[in-house]
């Protein structure tokens, strides 16, 4: 049978950008396969997408305090007011141990890594659902979203740190040489937050209970992380149990360097490092395993 064949347009439409050559003639060959049985982190691909990671983190930071009247002041106000309340309730009334450091600076220096951790977990856990439009329409390694999520509150941390420096001058508390190790302890906090965030963000795709559970979880977690009392003041065997919570080592180690409290102890620190690694690997494994179904179920 014959078919109406329409004539092509009289003259060819010129391309909109004259002389435009594909800029990045990527000879990348992509093979799309069924979900792998054993998920792995494709580092090469993450590297390929590094610019997008910066872009996503930058977007979240840029948007974070838009249309708020006091803006970034929130980053300082939150830990500061909490510090005042904790000092009154736990420091003055309940006389919790702070191991010789003035209670305000003790609790404030603990609140900094803690606030970072709590916000990082909250933001990264919500990241997949918050970016539903991206997840269902464009391909990119989904891990970028929780990773960008944990990088956002780092800026808040830096701002609140300026206040800590001021308090240190005020209370005449000086850092020890161990401050050089503080970034490592903070990195451990980031890795733990990312592990928890990876796990909860993947759970959140399926069960929207996560946003309700997080404030509750963080509230309980805080009391077992040495924010309101010094972990080192506890009986030894409790310290070993609490070392399973990586945040105890993060906070204790940070305070050791910054305000010169007792060091966390090598054994307990290694337990915490192991726990943080477990969180991270477990979270990543669960995330990668659920990843292929995100677009179908979100």
């Amino acid at each position, binding site marked *: 049978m014959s078919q109406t064949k329409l004539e092509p347009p009289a003259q060819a439409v010129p391309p909109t950008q004259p002389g435009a050559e594909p800029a990045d003639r990527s000879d990348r*060959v992509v093979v799309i396969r069924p979900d792998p049985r054993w998920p792995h982190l494709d580092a090469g691909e993450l590297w390929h997408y590094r610019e997008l990671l910066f872009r996503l983190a930058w977007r979240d930071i840029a948007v974070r305090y838009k249309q708020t009247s006091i803006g970034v002041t929130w980053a300082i106000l939150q830990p500061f007011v909490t510090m005042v309340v904790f000092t009154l309730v736990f420091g003055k009334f309940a006389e919790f141990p702070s191991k010789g450091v003035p209670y305000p600076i003790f609790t404030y220096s603990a609140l900094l890594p803690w606030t970072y951790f709590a916000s990082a977990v909250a933001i990264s856990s919500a990241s997949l659902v918050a970016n539903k439009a991206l997840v269902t329409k464009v391909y990119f390694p989904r891990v970028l979203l929780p990773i960008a999520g944990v990088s956002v509150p780092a800026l808040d941390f830096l701002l609140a740190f300026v206040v800590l420096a001021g308090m240190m001058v005020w209370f005449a508390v000086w850092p020890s040489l161990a401050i050089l190790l503080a970034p490592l302890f903070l990195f451990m906090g980031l890795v733990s937050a990312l592990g928890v965030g990876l796990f909860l963000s993947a759970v959140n795709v399926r069960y929207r209970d996560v946003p309700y559970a997080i404030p509750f979880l963080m509230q309980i977690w805080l009391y077992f992380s040495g924010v309101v009392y010094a972990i080192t003041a506890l009986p030894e065997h409790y310290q070993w149990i609490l070392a399973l919570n990586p945040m105890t080592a993060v906070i204790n180690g940070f305070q050791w360097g910054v305000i010169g409290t007792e060091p966390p102890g090598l054994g307990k620190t290694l337990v915490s490092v192991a726990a943080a690694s477990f969180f991270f690997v477990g979270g990543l494994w669960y995330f990668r395993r659920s990843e292929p179904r995100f677009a179908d179920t979100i």
Partner: protein
Amino acid sequence: MATAITAEGLSKQYRIGELQSAYGTLRDSLAAGARRFVRREHRQHYEEIWALRDVSFEVVEGEVLGVIGRNGAGKSTLLKILTRITTPTNGNVTIRGRVGSLLEVGTGFHPELTGRENVYLNGSVLGMKNREIQRRFDEIVEFAGVGQFIDTPVKRYSSGMSVRLAFAVAAHLEPEILLVDEVLAVGDAEFQRRCLGRMEDISLTGRTVIFVSHNMQALTQLCDRAIWLDKGEVVLDGPSPDVVARYLQSGFGTGAVRKWRDLESAPGDDLVRLRWVRATQDGVPADATDVRRPIGIEIAFTVLRRGEPVFPKIKVFDARGDVAFNAMDTSPRWDEPSPPGDYVSTAWIPGNFLNEGLSTVHVQVCTLGAPQLRPHATADIIAFHVQDPGEGDSARGGFIGQWKGVVRPLLEWTTEER
């Protein structure tokens, strides 16, 4: 020539439960788990459907491939796999080159950010490098025509402006392989037209395009080759005019003839039922008709009992799916209830009336229940092509280019010298 896409045995399975309750609460799962535990039930068996089944094809570089099929045939699933939004259950695809798609227009736009910031964000999301966006930035802004508003937050833009900006970013992506889902393309007709235009530009520069559409005219015009999917499987793969023609004549109804096996399964109710509908020219069913001669739309129906007065009606669509015209039989014979029996009514579409291309017809037998028409029997579309043999005696005369318009009357012209 190098292959751009090789798909081998692609299959995608969905569980119905997964699609319907997109997400549940933990409580539901715990409750279901507890029930299973108490009653010792087995895991709830999901109903499974195959959205794609063993689909294999190759696309060579520079080829423009069309994908057709009715809704739910697996077209969108195929695109989702090719864009890597979802993974196949079985099989694999090898893709050489950067993939871009016009389904992502505006994804990742953030209302609080300025136009400039959004161009960078959206560009990165679509896979552009920073320096690439920098180099194209001015072109993008110019193409979008947002000019001085580029540093204003996008939430202050009119919806037209933000769509233009989003489209400008997507259009400058310069993918080596472009995927277009016309069915999903959002926006007004103007916007869809621009998508098609952009697709044409890209295909002319020798890049690979996969085009999913219900617009058969555009598809035959733009694509060299087409794949017809049905129930997740490839029914036919070949030159697009052939595939489109076979698709239109397939059992699902679009072809010049539509017949029903028995009266029970035919469309209709207890008053009237259709028997067959067909498009004819010169007394024989015609998939391809000559533009110069009349086309008969024959409607065979059976009146089952004496009831309200009924009459036949047709609605004719052009290839873009727009209504070309409606027509109904207004003769006085239908003023009184018709005696039970078989009838064949023919609507005559005059010669030199419809334009060239595909026309589809929707048939009804109705009652006039003022102020509305109440249909008793409705037929799926039948379709036929109108073509011009080019002998110079049609409205075209000697012109051979594209002839626009829904209708193409051969008008009578008078010219006087005065």
